C-alpha cells in the first residue's frame, strides 16, 4: 500500500483541485481550497458541518460551478459544468440522499438515461439484464436485476448506486456520508467494496463524520474548516485526536464549553410513546430541568419522528407526553407550544423559517398571538422582540428587515432559536442544531444551549455529529430502529459505545470489516 502511494507521488495526481472558491448569498462556502487525489487512493475528507465539504463535492460532480479556481484531471484543466460532463470525466457522486428511481427495478436504474436499444428503438431489456448481472457481481451484490429498488434495504440501494457509477466507467467515486443510514453489517460490507475498488485502481473521496471509519479506511485525510483547507494527514499521522484538532481548530474542552449542573425535577416525561411508522416500539424518557441530553443514532433510527411527536406535528399512535406533570394534546403544535415546548427542526429552511420573510417577522412568528390585542399586530412589540433576540443571540444581519434567505446557515439557525427563546420555553428540542452551520456560529449555538440549561430549561438534542454528542451531552440516549437501545452517562460516552448501541449490535464497527476482508481474500 505504502509502496503504491509513493509511486503515485511521481506521476501527477489523478485529480487536482486548485484554489477553488464558491460564494452563496450570505456565506463564503469555499475560500481558495486545494486538494489532490491519487490513483487508487481513498482520500477521507472531513470537517465540521458547514466546513464546505459538500459544496466542493457538488462542484466536482457538476451540480454547482465554482466562482474561481481550477480542476485538473490527469494534469489537464477540465471544466465540469454539468452532471453529464462530470460523468464523462469519470466522476460520480454517491449522494447522502440516494438518487435512485425506487419505483423501477435494479436493471432499469443501472442504465437510466443510457438504455441500450434494440434495432427498432425499443429498450433492450435482455441486454440490460445480462449486463446488470455482471455489474452487480463487481460490487458483490447478490440481487436480481428485476428487483424493484424500493424493496431493497438502504445498504443495498447504496450498492446499486455504486454499481451504477461503476457501470458508467467512473474512475473517481465521491461518497458523501455513506454510512449515515447503514447498520454495522451493511457498513462492513460497504468497506469491503471500497477496499476492493481501491485495489482495482478506483479512486475514492470519502466524506464522513465517523472518525472511526476514516481511521479504518483512509490512505490520507484532508480536513476542511470554515470553507478553507485546514490541513492534511498522511496515513501514519491519522488519529482521532489529530483529526479533531484540525477540524475544530482549537482545544476541544474550550469548544464545547460545558458546565455540568445538577439537574432539577423531570420537566419532559415521555411515556410509552408509539410513533408511526415504527409503532411497534414504545419510547419512554424523561428530561430534567437544567439538563442537556443528546440523542444519537443512525439516520432513520426514528429520532426526528420522536421529536416531531413530542412537538405535536406527528401525532403519536399511542402514549402520552407530560410537561411539568400535565399531559399534552399532541394533534398540533399549539398545545405543546402553550406548555412551553419548542422545536428547532431538522430542516430549518423547510420547517424552521419562512425564508422570504424578514428576520423580524420570523422571530415574531410564534409570538404574534401573545403580543396581539384582539388580533391586531403589535408592530412596536414585534420590533422590540426582534432587536432583543438579534442582540442576545448575536445574529449577524444588517437590520431586522433583512430577508432570512440571505443570511448564512448559522445566522438562520440563530433566528430559529430566537423565535423560540422569545417564548421562554421550558423544554427545548433541537434536531441537528448545527447542520450546515459554520464553526463560529456553532460555538455560539452551543453557548446558547449551555446558557439555557443553566437557566433551568430541559434541552434534548438529536445529532448525527458524534463530536457534538460527545461534547455537549450530560447524558446521551441512543436510538436504533425506533427503540432507545441505551443510555450513556457523560463519563461513559465514547464513539464506540454509541456506535454499538446505534447499530443495535454488540460488535465494534472498527474491527468487523477487517475480519470480513481477510475472509474474502482467502
Amino acid at each position, binding site marked *: 500500500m505504502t509502496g503504491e502511494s509513493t509511486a503515485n507521488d511521481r506521476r501527477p495526481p489523478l485529480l487536482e483541485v486548485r484554489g477553488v472558491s464558491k*460564494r452563496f*448569498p*450570505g456565506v*463564503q462556502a469555499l475560500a481558495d481550497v486545494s486538494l489532490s487525489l491519487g490513483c487508487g487512493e481513498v482520500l477521507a475528507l472531513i470537517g465540521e458541518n458547514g466546513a464546505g465539504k459538500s459544496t466542493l463535492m457538488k462542484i466536482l460532480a457538476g451540480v454547482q460551478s465554482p*466562482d474561481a479556481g481550477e480542476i485538473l484531471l490527469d494534469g489537464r484543466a477540465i471544466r465540469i459544468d454539468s452532471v453529464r460532463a462530470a460523468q464523462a470525466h469519470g466522476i460520480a457522486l454517491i449522494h447522502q440522499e440516494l438518487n435512485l428511481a425506487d419505483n423501477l427495478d435494479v436493471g432499469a436504474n443501472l442504465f437510466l438515461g443510457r438504455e441500450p436499444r434494440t434495432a427498432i428503438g425499443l429498450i433492450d431489456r435482455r441486454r440490460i439484464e445480462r449486463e446488470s448481472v455482471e455489474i452487480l457481481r463487481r460490487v458483490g451484490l447478490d440481487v436480481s436485476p428485476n428487483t424493484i429498488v424500493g424493496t431493497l434495504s438502504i445498504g443495498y440501494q447504496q450498492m446499486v448506486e455504486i454499481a451504477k457509477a461503476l457501470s458508467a466507467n467512473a474512475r473517481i467515486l465521491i461518497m458523501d456520508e455513506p454510512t449515515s443510514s447503514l447498520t454495522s453489517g451493511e457498513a462492513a460490507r460497504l468497506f469491503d467494496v471500497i477496499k476492493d475498488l481501491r485495489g482495482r485502481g478506483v479512486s475514492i473521496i470519502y466524506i464522513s463524520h465517523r472518525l472511526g471509519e476514516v481511521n479504518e479506511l483512509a490512505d490520507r485525510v484532508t480536513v476542511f474548516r470554515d470553507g478553507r483547507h485546514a490541513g492534511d494527514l498522511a496515513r501514519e499521522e491519522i488519529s482521532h485526536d489529530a483529526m479533531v484538532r484540525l477540524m475544530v481548530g482549537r482545544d476541544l474542552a474550550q469548544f464545547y464549553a460545558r458546565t455540568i449542573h445538577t439537574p432539577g425535577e423531570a420537566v419532559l416525561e415521555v411515556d410509552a410513546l408509539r410513533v408511526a411508522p415504527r409503532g411497534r416500539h414504545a419510547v419512554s424518557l424523561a428530561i430534567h430541568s437544567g439538563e442537556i441530553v443528546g440523542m444519537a443514532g443512525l439516520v432513520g433510527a426514528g429520532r426526528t419522528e420522536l421529536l416531531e411527536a413530542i*412537538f405535536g*406535528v406527528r401525532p403519536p399512535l399511542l402514549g402520552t407526553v407530560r410537561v411539568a406533570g400535565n399531559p399534552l394534546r399532541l394533534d*398540533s*403544535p*399549539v398545545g405543546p*407550544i*402553550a406548555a412551553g415546548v419548542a*422545536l428547532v*427542526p431538522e430542516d430549518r429552511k*423547510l*420547517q*424552521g*423559517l*419562512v*425564508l*422570504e*420573510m424578514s428576520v423580524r*417577522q420570523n422571530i415574531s*412568528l*410564534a409570538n*404574534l*398571538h401573545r403580543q*396581539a390585542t384582539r*388580533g*391586531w*399586530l403589535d408592530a412596536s412589540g414585534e420590533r422590540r422582540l426582534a432587536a432583543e433576540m438579534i442582540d442576545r443571540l448575536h445574529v449577524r444581519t444588517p437590520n431586522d428587515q433583512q430577508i432570512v434567505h*440571505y443570511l448564512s446557515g448559522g445566522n438562520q439557525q440563530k433566528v430559529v432559536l430566537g*423565535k423560540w427563546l422569545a417564548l421562554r420555553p421550558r423544554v427545548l428540542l433541537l434536531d441537528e442544531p448545527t447542520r450546515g452551520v459554520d464553526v463560529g456560529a456553532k460555538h455560539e449555538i452551543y453557548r446558547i444551549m449551555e446558557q439555557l440549561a443553566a437557566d433551568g430549561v430541559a434541552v434534548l438534542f438529536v445529532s448525527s455529529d458524534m463530536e457534538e454528542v460527545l461534547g455537549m451531552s450530560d447524558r446521551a440516549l441512543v436510538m436504533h430502529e425506533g427503540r432507545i437501545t441505551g443510555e450513556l452517562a457523560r463519563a461513559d460516552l465514547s464513539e464506540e459505545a454509541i456506535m454499538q448501541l446505534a447499530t443495535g449490535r454488540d460488535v465494534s464497527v472498527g474491527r468487523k470489516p477487517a475480519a470480513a476482508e481477510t475472509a474474502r481474500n482467502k
Partner: protein
Amino acid sequence: MNKILGILGLLIVVCLATTLGNPRFLSPGNVENLIRLTALFGLISVGVAFVIITGGIDLSIGSTIALTGCLLAMFLEVDYVPREVPTTVTEVRTEPRAVVLSGDAGDLAKGDRLHVPTGVPGKFRFLTVDSVATEQDRTVAAVVESPSIVSAGGKVTVAKLHHMNVILAVALVLAISVGIGVLHGVLITKVRLQPFVVTLCGLLFYRGYARYLTNEQTQHFDASLEGLKYLASGQPFQVPIPFLRWIGDGSWSRFLWDPTAGKHALDAQGNLIPLDMIAWVAVPMPVIIMLVVAVLAAVFLNRTIYGRYLLALGRNEQAARYSGINTDRMTILAYVICSVLAGVAGILFALDLNLIQPASHANFYELYAISAAVLGGCSLRGGEGAILGVLIGAAVMRVLSNSIVLLGISTHLEFAIIGLVLLAGVIADEMVKRYAARRRAKHEAVLAEKGA
C-alpha cells in the same frame, strides 16, 4: 410596492393610449361604467387574492356568482295572492288610467294586481297597480295597463304582491356562500385534496345545480325590488372632475362632438353646443361597497396577526405550522373570504344585469379575477399580494376590454389580448426579480472582496 407602481404605470399607459385613440373613453358615462365594472370585478379579485396568498386557487368563482345570482332571483320571485272576496269597481278612468274601487281597499299598494275575470272559470286578465290614492271613502288605483277590460259596476279581485323578505333573501345567499367556502376549505385542509381539483368540481357543480334549479330559465328581478336594486345601480353621490366632458364628449374641444358625423354637433339654431368644464361623475353603489371591502381586506392582511399568518403559511405552510399557527383554520378562512366576496359580487352582478342566464352568466369570471390578482402582484406560489395591486389589476382588465371596443379592435381578440398582457406582466416581473437578485449577489461579492 415596486410591483404596484409597475401595474399602476401599465394602467396609466393603457388609459392614455385609449384616450388618444378615442377620446370618448373619458366621457363621464364611460368612466362611470368602467368604475362600476372595476368595482364588481375588483370584489372577486380581492377574494381570490386571499386564496392565492395561501398558495391555493379558486376556479369556482364564476359558477358561484351564477348560483348565488339565480338563488337570489328565485328567493325573490314574486307571487300574487288573490283575496277571497272580490271588490266592486265604481268607476273606470282612462285619462289618466285608473280604477276606482268601492270602499276601503285595505293595504292595496304599488305592484299589486287587480284580477279581472274573463268569464271562463280560473282564467283572468290583470291590471298592475301603479299608485294608490284615496278620494272620500273610495280608493283610486292608478294602473299601468289600459283599464278598458273592466267596467263600472264590475268585480275585480285584489291580488297582493308577495315575495320573501329581501334582507332574509340576501342573508340566505350570503350564508350559502359561506357554506361553499367552508366546504372548499375543509376539503382542502382536512381531506387534503388539491385546491385546483376541489374548486374545479365546484365550478362544474354550482353551475350545473344553478341550471337545474332554474330549469335553465332566464332569471330576473321584479320591478318592485327597487330598494335592492339600489345596491347595484344606486348613485348616492357625484364627484366633480374637470375637463372630462371637454375631452370625452367634446373630443378635445369645448363643444359637443358628434362622433358618427365626425364633426361638432349643432343645436336647432345651428350653433355649437358648449360643454361644462366640470363633469359630475356619479359614483355607483358597487364602487362604495368595493372600497369598504378593500379597506377592510387591506387592514386585515397588513394590520392583524391573521393576515400575517396567511402570508406566512402561503410562503411556507410547514414552517407556519411548526410555529404553532393553526394553518388549517387560516386556510379555510381564506376560502370563506373568497366565496363570500363571490357571493356579494354574485348579488351585485345579478342586480346589475337583471337578466341571468344560468348557463352563461359570469362564465370565466374566475379567470378574470385570477388574472387581476396575478397582474396585481400575487404569486401563485403563495405568500405574496397586496390589495391595492389587485384592485389596479382588476382595473387594467376592465380598461383593456373597454379599450378593445372603443378602439374598434375586434372583440373576438379580447381574450387573446388579455392573455398577452398577463403574460407580458409576469415575464416583466420575473425579469425584474432576477435582475434584483443578480445585483444583490454582485453587491455581496463586492462587499466580500473589500472585506478580504
